[in-house]
């Protein structure tokens, strides 16, 4: 009996995923986001295989070599290969965005579900604390955390994760509130299930659509804050490439070579655009009841 149930369950989940993917692929925003993200993600993931040169090796060609010739995208002021640097830079920047979102989810989702499910004074108290975090502009809060912990990639992830926590907690909470009086929840309560069981086995799956939509938008925003920190010299540390750090380096020589500025900028814009489009397409596809439209 239990077995048939789980087979049925798997089938319905697979069917659902299939349906969602189909709808995602048939929307224009979904198509565009996949067109942008797939090559960028693959390129960054397989950077060690694809990159023709060591991204930190100097003197690959003359400084500020134009694209074409010996190097695909040209070189920077130390004669380092820009194509290799953009690929490896993507690895650093995208990992940062993904890791920060993951951390934000780990912190924010349980807080949101418990706050929404327990309700009353607990809910009020938790949400007030979240509101306090929300009252400091994202970038400043991230800056403050990075400054006190020290610069570097790990601390940047931690900082952005903390920035994302209250936003994800809020979305999860509103979503929880909208379903907490559904029959299957009251049934679980009547069965005498514990609050933790109800929160994570009954509620979590139902609030997933809202969380997925929000998370996909967060990744793009995480990359944005992360590269901004690197631009200020507080994120990924040199000589390792990161798109933000690359642009900040290129700034001083922007009138000598446009390529040095242009490639990391384009890569950055295309990636964030891709995640924004993906978030929008997922919102249309999954149609969660609550979403945010803030930065």
């Amino acid at each position, binding site marked *: 009996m239990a077995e048939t149930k789980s087979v049925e369950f798997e089938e319905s989940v697979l069917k659902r995923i299939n349906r969602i993917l189909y709808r995602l692929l048939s929307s224009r925003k979904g198509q565009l986001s996949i067109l942008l993200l797939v090559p960028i993600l693959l390129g960054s993931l397989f950077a060690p295989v694809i990159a023709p040169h060591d991204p930190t090796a100097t003197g690959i060609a003359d400084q500020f070599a134009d694209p074409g010739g010996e190097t695909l995208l040209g070189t920077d002021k130390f004669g380092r290969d820009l194509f290799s640097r953009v690929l490896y830079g993507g690895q650093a920047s995208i990992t940062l965005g993904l890791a920060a979102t993951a951390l934000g989810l780990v912190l924010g989702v349980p807080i949101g579900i418990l706050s929404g499910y327990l309700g009353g004074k607990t809910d009020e108290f938790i949400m*007030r604390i979240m509101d*306090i975090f929300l*009252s400091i*502009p994202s970038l*400043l809060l991230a*800056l403050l955390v990075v400054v006190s912990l020290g610069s570097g990639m790990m601390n940047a992830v931690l900082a952005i994760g903390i920035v994302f926590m209250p936003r994800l907690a809020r979305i999860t909470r509103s979503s929880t509130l909208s379903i907490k009086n559904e029959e299957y929840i009251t049934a679980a309560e009547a069965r005498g299930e514990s609050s933790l069981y109800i929160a994570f086995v009954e509620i979590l799956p139902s609030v997933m659509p809202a969380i997925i939509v929000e998370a996909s938008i967060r990744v793009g925003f995480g990359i944005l804050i992360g590269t901004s920190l690197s631009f200020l010299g507080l994120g990924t540390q040199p000589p390792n490439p990161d798109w933000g750090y690359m642009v900040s380096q*290129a*700034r001083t020589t922007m009138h000598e070579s446009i390529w040095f500025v242009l490639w990391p900028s384009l890569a950055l*814009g295309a990636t964030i655009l891709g995640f924004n489009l993906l978030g929008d397409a997922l919102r249309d596809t999954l149609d969660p009841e609550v979403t945010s439209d803030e*930065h």
Partner: protein
Amino acid sequence: MVGFKEYFIKRLVYIGFTLLGISLIVFGITQLLPGNAATMILGKFATEESIQALEQQLGLNKPWYVQYTSWLADFVTGNWGQSFENNSPVIETLAAPLRRSAVLAFVTMILVSVVGISLGVLAAVKKDTPSDVVVSTASYLGISFPEFVTGILLLMLFTGPVFNVLPFGGYAPLSEGFVPWLKHLILPAVTLTFVLIAHVVRLTRSEMVDVLQSDYIRTARLKGMKERSVLLKHGLRNGLLPTITLLALDIGYLLGSIVIVEEVFSYPGLGRLIVRSIQVRDLPVIQASIMVIAIVYTFANFGADIIYTYLDPRIEYGES
């Protein structure tokens, strides 16, 4: 409106708690900074005795809550301490940069409102035509490029071989004339506008699309009103309410962006001061600047809430 008054007071009390919480976060995080204030003031080569003497004098050996309450009491009474870097009072160090940032923020908000709302209305009126697509695509691109990328691309375009018409950065006070002042202000303001405008355009467009399909607009048109007055008199008035709230909320995002934008354009405002004081670990300046920004942000949110609640009769006063 008794309900409104109660709501207003409740929100004010709540703001008090929020600001108290923020002050705890700001104080707590800055206490984590490596090296304490005494070492920062006296430098690396100070003797152990002189550091201990200064710690005693600054009260650094007292428990954290004593330090916090005395810091908070000082902050509330306007005694923000001395800057570690140049030894002048923090309030004086903050005043001029704060004024310059306020000017930049003000010009940006005007640009965002006027251009954003106009483009949103245009896109709604010309729904599904090429103009609509162009406006929507452009605003999408705006939010997808970080401030420092947009800023540097604009610098490349307007200060170099292509159009050498604007200064590379910096600031000129109004006393040196309107044109130099404007020339230094324009690129930072445009960069911020480009980043902020997308949400305003999108929201105005979707609200106006709804409003333009409503019955009373159809009635106004049937009555033979000119399209222009239909739009301005009936459309905008009803479609703009959510946009006003959004604009107030955008002030918060602007306050974060301004740090990056001022750094890119070497604009000597509060954002640049924060980055500078972080680099030299000027604790009192970091604390005070972040507090000022958080206070402005909190009151902007409060303003947005109050305007919305006051203008929209459907809303209930109470918890969200």
